[in-house]
């Protein structure tokens, strides 16, 4: 560790860092704009200037940009030097010559990096006496608002959007002090990662448009650490509420998972919490007045629950606590996962291999550090978007590795690395059904049918080790690709294999495992990722309950079964014919959910439950990382409770006991650990409910929170007592512990002088590094050095069939997520249902693009417009899946298609 001197004080710092990073890591205040820990340095804004001295006898020194200078043993520099501070103040004065003085009405006001830096440099009085430059703003779609006059030309937006996220439709235009950041013309931003602009932009040019619609100052939010509910990646978020409505989702840094960025589904998919579609009262069907009181509900349930048999249907989007509480209520033998047998089967395999200890499941950070990535089948751009953003970084970093080696360029020197790297890419092999935006950075892209993907996977392993199973009748093409991919993987030290269930193919799952297991056993630190459908699919599957199909078989045998179904719209994952059949067979259907949907319509008793924002829970992401989300606000409606809490109450009803004890998530998780040892450790994901620091709880409200005594003055004259949260160490006040809380319980980022999200640096070991105390999440799978058991049987090659097509789902990053699809802004961007055929097949059917086709699935007819894709392998029909109100189809079955 080099020793450096900052203002004549010696510090040990990490080698390879730049002076700005080193200063920030030491907790020193040094302003900056164009640098960003995830984007690196370019030295454009000149805000981070410091004075470097040759040695202690050099009185003169030299002004340098701290973000562009590497730490060296013995290096001396000054932050407080007069010329340096004057220059930094001057930079702000320059930026302010054109910046509007609209802080009072600016969305960013109070959480603005520019404001912070202005105060930090001490610039206060204006000397510029000429007119300001003005720009026209653009319409950028329903998610991001544009206010160009506030721009300080730090170039971060384009560096993020274009260079980091691979977007093509945002750029910088014109020159000198007319530079303009936006689109070529008005229009919706195309990148599904556009929302990050609001956090990347240091001022109010790009802001969250959905927040704007129910705006509140960020310091006025009640906030809690949360976990995204919209796919299996499990990004960490901060959710903020005021006046009982959820106002926005912001990124919560976790270096292992999402780092600094979210996808738009995750950022904007929150509005369902505030939607009209919420279940707010218990309903008992077929009564003159269906909405009932809690007492009436209890009376009803007491009867229902005490007669006949009881089964429970869990949910891949409900928390561990809720699923487990259901299992406890109905009993182990009566608990079913609310998913199809096909899906459950694949998930069982995945759980099997991940818990075998023979492969390592990779975090996003590990994906980003890989030196070769093979994607086998999964369309991660649409099913695990944040993972796709990571893969973009992997490829970039791989290419940059050369520059850092050959030119000894530090990794943060983004500008220089880019110029060296040019169009070079690292190794990404993207094997999918359709073209994907990832192809652009892929060294090799292959479009094949799922069986052939599996065969290729097997063949690659066979190429690396001939004793591994070979595929039957491989064609030259397959062998060629197997050979060339094998060659790269063999060279790699940290290869990552990504696969998943969205192609509905067992062989693909097997092949991905064989690849990862083989690479691991040949001494590489290989990683394996299986993308699964929902935010807690992995956790639910780990409970090893039978699938929904088994529940159907079970209910066929009985006539007096009451079904309790939690947070699950079965129509989305099970063909409607089967769902209806099931509902007909059950005697009573009790549904607990937060939103109305087709399944809740069938409930005899419908119980309103908390959304993620109104309750606590734990979910397990694709890598087996258990993470806690906290209640953001207590709903004013006391009937809205967490599913697990309701279920506990139901069990008391059933046992005819009165409320015996107060229940906390920790207790449930402790019981879960005992009942199911595969979850051991899960209770460590978050501090216990009674955790405190020096007797103080962690405030959900920043100490700048305003209006506490006045915000409800129209309702009560006296200030209401703060709400009590007994389930977690977080309090609903602004008082409490002011230091840095445990990393899993950080409700917001703030540090003195740092009111914007940039304050996160103060919570990290070093800029861009892990959070102090380690990143949140407990991994439930671990490598244990066991020998792998390989899958032996590669599938046969895929053959097209006469007049029939293999039906597979096609997902959309914005549109396919269940909860997020109840959000207006995302609905606007979601496509209408359609089907995709290969161009060849379309010709066979004499179809033109846009023509309608009819298909009949599980007794139901669908008419869909068809799109033609050249790249899609023949014999496959893709249909959009997961869109609002869309039926589940018999995925992976062969069906007929007719021209309409």
């Amino acid at each position, binding site marked *: 560790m080099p020793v450096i001197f900052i203002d004549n004080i010696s510090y040990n710092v990490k080698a390879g860092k730049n002076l700005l990073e080193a200063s920030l890591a030491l907790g020193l205040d040094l302003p900056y704009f164009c640098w960003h820990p995830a984007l690196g340095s*370019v*030295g*454009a*804004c*000149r*805000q981070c*200037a410091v004075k470097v001295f040759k040695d202690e006898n050099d009185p003169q020194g*030299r*002004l*340098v940009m701290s973000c*562009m200078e590497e730490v060296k043993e013995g290096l001396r520099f000054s932050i407080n030097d007069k010329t340096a501070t*004057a*220059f930094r103040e*001057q*930079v702000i004065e*320059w*930026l302010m*010559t*054109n910046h509007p003085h609209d802080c009072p009405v600016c969305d960013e006001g109070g959480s603005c990096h520019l404001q912070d830096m202005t105060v930090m440099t001490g610039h206060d009085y204006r*000397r*510029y006496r*000429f007119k300001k430059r003005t720009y026209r703003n653009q319409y950028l779609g329903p998610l991001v608002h544009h206010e160009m006059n506030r721009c*300080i*030309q730090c*170039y971060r937006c384009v560096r993020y959007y274009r260079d980091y996220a691979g977007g093509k439709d945002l750029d*910088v235009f*014109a*020159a*000198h*002090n*007319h*530079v303009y950041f936006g689109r070529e013309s008005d229009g919706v931003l195309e990148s599904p990662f556009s929302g990050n602009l609001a956090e990347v932009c240091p001022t109010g040019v790009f802001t969250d448009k959905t927040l704007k619609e129910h705006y509140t100052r960020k310091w006025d939010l009640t906030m809690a650490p949360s976990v995204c509910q919209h796919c299996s990646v499990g990004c960490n978020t901060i959710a903020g509420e005021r006046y009982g409505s959820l106002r926005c989702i912001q990124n919560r840094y976790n270096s292992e998972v999402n780092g600094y960025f979210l996808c738009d589904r995750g950022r904007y998919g929150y509005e369902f919490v505030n939607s009209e579609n919420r279940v707010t009262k218990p309903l008992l069907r077929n009564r003159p007045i269906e909405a009932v009181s809690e007492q009436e509900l209890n009376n009803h349930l007491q009867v229902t629950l005490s007669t006949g048999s009881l089964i429970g249907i869990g949910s891949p989007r409900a928390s561990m606590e809720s699923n487990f509480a259901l299992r406890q209520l109905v009993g182990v033998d009566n608990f079913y996962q609310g998913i199809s047998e096909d899906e459950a089967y694949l998930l069982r395999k995945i759980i099997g291999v991940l818990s075998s200890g023979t492969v390592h499941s990779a975090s996003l950070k590990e994906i980003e550090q890989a030196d070769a990535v093979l994607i086998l089948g999964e369309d991660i751009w649409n099913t695990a978007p944040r993972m796709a953003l990571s893969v973009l970084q992997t490829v970039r970093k791989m290419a940059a590795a050369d*520059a850092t080696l*050959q*030119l000894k*360029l530090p990794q943060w*020197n983004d*500008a*220089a690395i880019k*110029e*060296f*790297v*040019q169009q*070079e890419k690292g190794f990404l092999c993207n094997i999918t059904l359709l073209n994907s935006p990832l192809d652009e950075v892929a060294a090799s892209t292959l479009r094949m049918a799922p069986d052939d993907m599996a065969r290729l996977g097997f063949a690659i392993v066979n190429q690396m080790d001939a004793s591994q199973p070979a595929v039957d009748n491989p064609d030259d093409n397959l062998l060629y690709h197997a050979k060339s991919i094998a060659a790269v993987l063999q060279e790699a030290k940290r290869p990552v294999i990504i696969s998943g269930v969205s192609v509905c193919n067992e062989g693909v799952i097997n092949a991905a495992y064989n690849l990862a297991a083989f690479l691991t056993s040949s001494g590489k630190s290989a990683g394996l990722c299986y993308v699964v459908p929902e935010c807690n699919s992995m956790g639910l599957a780990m409970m090893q309950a039978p699938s929904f199909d088994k529940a159907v078989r079970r209910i066929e045998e009985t006539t007096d079964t009451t079904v309790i179904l939690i947070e699950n719209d079965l129509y989305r994952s099970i063909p409607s014919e089967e769902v209806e059949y099931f509902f007909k067979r059950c005697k009573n259907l009790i549904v607990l959910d937060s939103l109305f949907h087709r399944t809740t319509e069938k409930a005899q008793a419908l119980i309103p439950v908390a959304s993620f924002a109104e309750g606590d829970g734990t979910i397990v992401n694709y890598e087996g990382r258990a993470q806690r989300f906290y209640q953001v606000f207590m709903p004013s409606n006391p009937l809205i409770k967490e599913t697990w809490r309701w279920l506990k109450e139901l069990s008391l009803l059933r046992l005819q006991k009165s409320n015996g004890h107060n229940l906390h998530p920790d207790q449930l998780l402790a019981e879960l650990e005992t009942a199911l040892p595969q979850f051991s450790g899960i209770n460590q994901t978050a501090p216990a409910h009674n955790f405190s620091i020096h007797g103080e709880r962690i405030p959900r409200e920043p100490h700048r929170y305003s209006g506490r005594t006045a915000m409800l003055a129209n309702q009560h004259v006296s200030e209401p007592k703060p709400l009590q949260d007994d389930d977690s160490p977080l309090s609903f006040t602004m008082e409490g512990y002011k230091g840095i809380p445990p990393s899993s319980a950080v409700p917001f980022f703030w540090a003195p002088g740092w009111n914007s999200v940039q304050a996160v640096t103060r919570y990290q070991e070093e800029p861009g590094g892990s959070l102090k105390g380690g990143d949140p999440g407990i991994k439930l799978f671990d490598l244990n050095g066991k020998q792998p058991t390989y899958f032996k049987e590669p599938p046969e090659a895929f053959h097209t069939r006469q007049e029939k097509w293999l039906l597979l789902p096609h997902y959309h990053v914005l549109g396919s997520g269940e909860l997020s699809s109840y959000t207006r802004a995302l609905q606007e961007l979601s496509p209408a249902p359609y089907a995709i055929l290969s161009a060849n097949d379309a010709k066979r059917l004499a179809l033109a693009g846009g023509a309608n086709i009819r298909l009949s699935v599980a007794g139901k007819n669908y008419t869909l417009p068809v799109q033609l894709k050249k790249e899609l392998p023949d014999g496959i029909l893709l249909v959009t899946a997961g869109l609002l109100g869309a039926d589940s189809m018999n995925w992976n079955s062969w069906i007929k298609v007719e021209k309409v």
Partner: protein
Amino acid sequence: MERPLTQHIDLRRPAFTLKEYEQAGGYAALKKAVKELTPKEVQQVVQDSNLKGRGGAGFNTGLKWSFVPMGDEARHPKYLIANADEMEPGTFKDRLLLEGNPHQLIEGMIIAAYAIQADISYIFLRWAYKKAAHLIRKALAEAYEAGYLGENILGSGWGLQMHLHTGVGRYMCGEETALLNALEGKRATPRSKPPFPQVSGLFGKPTVVNNVETFCCIPHIVSNGAEWFKGLSKSEDGGTKIYGVSGKVKRPGAWELPMGITMRELLEEHAGGMANGYQLRGVLPGGASTDFLTTEHMDIKLDFKSVAAAGSRLGTGTMIVMDDATCPVGFVHNLQHFFAQESCGWCTPCREGLPWVEKILLSIEKGEGREEDLDILSLHTKMLGPGNTYCALATGAMEPLQSALKYFREDFERHIHEKSCPWNGHEHR
């Protein structure tokens, strides 16, 4: 007096064809270099000749080349680029060389390319030089035809491609790293250094950029040796220099003269002194981004070191004369307008500072200036100083301003006090 660079230049007749150029001894240096010298030896003779880059910064050319990685390990293709962007206001020396004798440039470039073992070379020519573009195209075709370009040049086994690239405006394209971006089809913003272009330049590959005049010296150095080249000069910098004078002098023009002649010789002998009725007030000795010199500097030597010692820079060696009928404030405003306009918009000080400076100067010129404006102007000359901005554009822009504030301060003050321009000549914008 020897005038190696311009001896065959006569703008009244067409530029030399390849044949004429060869007859006058052209391409002999190339033959000598390729057949008798190793690349390192060529680098060495150029370094020994003390040829300093004629693009304005005055860095030893041979030394610059020596940073290019050589040998089998080196990454290819390597690039060599002639900077023929010449957009520095008041500069018109490269045009003379380009229109007068394009083969000389091409030969110099081929030798330089040989010295660094480049594979591909470009002439980055500014858009406005239509005639030069035409002549270069023709000369390139001839050189290819004669086997001086292409594969296996003169049987050496080494080959070189050379292309002409014409720009689409922007002064920034002359800055060598911004030029690389322009050649890559990007916005001409500068690049960070290090890494230097010699290591990671065009398309990330080793690259050397030199000025046209620099290249034109090369054949002569290789033919006649380092000592001869140094002997041409009246100072420690080697060779001759194309000096030029514009403004209200009797005979504006450009001349090749020994490096290190005095300003007096240049202005009085070659430019014929001031035009009738005008007095000299100041000169920018080497283009728009150099500090003013005044009558007190008439006897300084025009070489890199002496001009620097007098508080300015030799720059491009083409001087702009400011006479007594020209308002210094208007003059400086004109320059700052140019620089603000040509700022690429990448770094804050230049992008935001120059327009402020320009606005202040215009308001002073219009008689709307205020006392404190002069402080803000001085402040900018410091704040936009070397190292504070990303590239040298803004720093260069401050040179005429800071020296104007020094030498012509009363003129600025008169504008402010009298609330009008004593020359009454502000620009019609």
